[in-house]
């Protein structure tokens, strides 16, 4: 039944659907092989919420202007220069025409969400979030004649010389093969494969939580790398942040984030502080805390705040652990009570004048004579009730991916694979060498998904 298809798209998230719709609009017969069941379709796109978009005048929900150079500089800041400028500029420049294209394909935008006003100029928010975008794309793809197979696990792409000659997959309990003219892989990274993550990172990775889909296991990525398709990105690295330690192993998404670290002290399981919690504003620091927690015993941390700080940050999915005294909190969180008391007492004693405390800017309210110091928002923890959260490392995505050129083509040492394109997180390492810029993953997925769809359709026709 699958022999009639010109193009196989592997994956079912934003990039895959952008590729599938684009190719179908150019007349190709497309099948999407999505490994998740319908309820979990869409990969990590389900958890996204916005699209970072260049614009020279107000565009859709976006105010003012956001030029190419400013966008690129923002990218340079978070990646520390580890980016492919040519590809990055293609993504940035093309993003402007993508927004109306997305609307034409069913996506609806909304004004910047409460608590995210700082992004009103740069990021267009999907009404209802990423799953509603995914829903709209599946509806549009269906109208365009794209077929979708759910729970279709692609196991192998046969690389013969300079082309993919066969796609092997299992579906409804049967192993099947077919030979489409072109293949687009948009199947994300490998972060949901804990064994792979552990091989790359080491044993602590066993305790990491995966913020997104459990279906990004990197099966096809590994298969292609084994056959010599060129890779990009540090295989040992992943983007990780500190999230609520009570979050589920997979798929906790946005609601598990905790923004309270700057107003807290963070201790490890021995009730000892280990890093300056007030180093910088949270959006600039949340990514390093994933790594900091990963380096603590059992890969766990504990946030302690007092009643005055409770309303200074966005609520998380789980209510904080609440106690009238530090001892009670220590007991409830499984920390050594005397040690926690000592740590807090030492911290409180190191706090000075707090009259300049200002939650949204670097206020310079610092500790003195404490190691490690807290260099901003250092206010003693005194006012009951005392609240606590546990923190764990939450992995967003892995950096290792397929290296592509400006036409989203994959290659081996011998040159291009003539009928293989990659889009989305599978190739995002080509642009994001480290760090992350909010909403840029969707930009890469949309831009390179459309390029891959166009190129594959041209090849197939």
């Amino acid at each position, binding site marked *: 039944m699958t022999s009639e298809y010109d193009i196989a798209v592997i994956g079912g998230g934003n990039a895959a659907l952008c590729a599938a719709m684009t190719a179908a609009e150019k007349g190709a017969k497309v099948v999407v092989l999505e490994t998740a069941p319908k309820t979990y379709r869409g990969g990590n796109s389900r958890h996204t919420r916005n699209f970072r978009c260049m614009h020279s005048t107000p565009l859709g929900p976006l105010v003012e202007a956001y030029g190419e150079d400013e966008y690129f500089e923002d990218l340079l800041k978070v990646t520390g220069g580890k980016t492919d400028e040519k590809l990055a500029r293609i993504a940035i420049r093309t993003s402007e025409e993508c927004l109306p294209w997305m609307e034409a394909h069913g996506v609806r935008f*909304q004004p910047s969400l409460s608590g995210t006003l700082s992004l009103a100029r740069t990021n267009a928010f999907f009404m209802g979030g990423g799953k509603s975008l995914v829903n709209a794309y599946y509806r549009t793809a269906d109208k365009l004649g794209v077929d979708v197979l759910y729970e279709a696990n692609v196991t192998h792409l046969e690389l013969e010389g300079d082309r993919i000659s066969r796609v092997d997959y299992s579906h409804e309990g049967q192993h099947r093969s077919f030979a489409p003219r072109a293949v687009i892989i948009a199947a994300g990274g490998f972060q949901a494969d804990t064994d792979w993550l552990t091989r790359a990172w080491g044993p602590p990775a066993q305790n990491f939580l995966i913020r997104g889909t459990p279906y990004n296991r990197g099966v096809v990525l590994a298969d292609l790398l084994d056959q010599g398709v060129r890779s990009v990105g540090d295989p040992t690295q992943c983007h990780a942040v500190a999230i609520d330690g009570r979050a589920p192993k997979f798929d906790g*998404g946005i609601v598990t984030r905790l923004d309270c670290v700057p107003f807290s002290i963070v201790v490890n399981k021995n009730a000892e502080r280990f890093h300056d919690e007030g180093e910088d504003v949270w959006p600039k620091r949340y990514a390093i805390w994933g790594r900091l927690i990963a380096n603590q015993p059992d890969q766990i941390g504990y946030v302690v705040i007092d009643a005055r700080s409770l309303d200074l940050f966005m*609520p998380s999915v789980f209510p904080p652990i609440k106690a009238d005294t530090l001892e009670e909190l220590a007991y409830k969180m499984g920390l050594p009570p005397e040690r926690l008391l000592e740590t807090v007492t030492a911290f409180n004693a190191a706090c000075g004048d707090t009259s300049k405390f200002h939650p949204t800017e670097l206020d310079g309210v610092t500790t003195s004579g404490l190691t490690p110091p807290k260099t901003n928002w250092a206010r003693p923890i005194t006012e009951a009730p005392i609240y606590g959260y546990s923190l764990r490392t939450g992995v967003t995505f892995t950096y290792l991916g397929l290296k592509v050129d400006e036409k989203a083509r994959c290659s081996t040492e011998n040159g291009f694979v003539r009928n293989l394109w990659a889009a989305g997180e599978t190739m995002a390492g080509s642009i994001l060498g480290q760090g992350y810029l909010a909403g840029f993953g969707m930009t890469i997925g949309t831009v390179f998904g459309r390029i891959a769809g166009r190129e594959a359709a041209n090849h197939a026709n």
Partner: protein
Amino acid sequence: MQTDLLREARRQAEICNACRYCEGYCSVFPALHQERFFSEANLTQLANLCHNCRGCYYACQYTAPHEFDLNLPKALAEVRQDSWESFAWPAPLARRFQESGVMIALATVLGFGVLFLAFRMLGSAGGSGFYAVLSHSAMVTIFLPAFLFPLLSIAVSLRRYWRATEGGRIDFDQVVDAFGSAAKMKNLAGGHGDGCNFEDEDRFSQARRFAHQAVMYGFLLCFASTTAGTILHYVFDMPAPYPFKSLPKLLGIPGGLLMVIGTIWLASLKLKADKSLGAPSAWGGEMGFILLLFLVALSGLGLYALGGTTAMPALLAIHLGSVLSFFLLTPYTKMVHGFYRLAALVRDEQRKSVG
């Protein structure tokens, strides 16, 4: 109110509050995002503000089989249903009719019976037209209390609602804005204006919004028609029946047609929609209520068409009987949602003016 329903709604509201992706869909989310902890007052208000457009359900990355198991439309529908039952006066009547279409049908048949009996016992006292079957004064004797009692009952309930949601003094602008929202059924438009999700999973459509407005405006036209008739009768001494080119008919016929079309449409949409995104226990009562409205409208139109034939007395009994049941059941059926919804919209305007 039932604590298990409140607890579940609170659990879900806390997750929504940490996510906020649905902020643009309707009035519920901006109100929800303003809270940090959810009291019974908050949840009661949010539940009555929710129009069950279901946009948030289909957009949600945390619906089952995800372990967070979010189904906010259902959680709020159940609190809403429970709130109506707890605010109803007299309370024991509420649950029976809110949840049971069969009970509504029985009450309607009882309504027919009362009217037939009245025809037999009270008779015409020498009137003509409809009044040849039942005198005008007998009709007034039956319908005036049947109209006033529900109003009293609803007034008691709304007062309870207002206290429970900690509402303040109402000013005129708040009322105007609330009616404006209901007039356009803004909360079923989906924020983007594409409509809501109902009859076909995540596809946005205006069907439910338009069907609802057909029923609502149809009902208001019929109500205006009756009011016009009453004024003609008492002020201008012009008793029924009225000719086609009269205010009662010019209002009533389009009103009746809109109601018939709207109720059929709503019922067919309701059959296609996923029951588990509402309060499943109330489904029968809601459907029974739609059919009762349909019967009121259809029998009214029938009376217009066949008023001169021998079928008239039977049709009159059916029409007046169904109207009687409709009025008396108003505080205890889905009909009451209109009153609570308006109260919730006014309450939301108060929140906005404070917040």
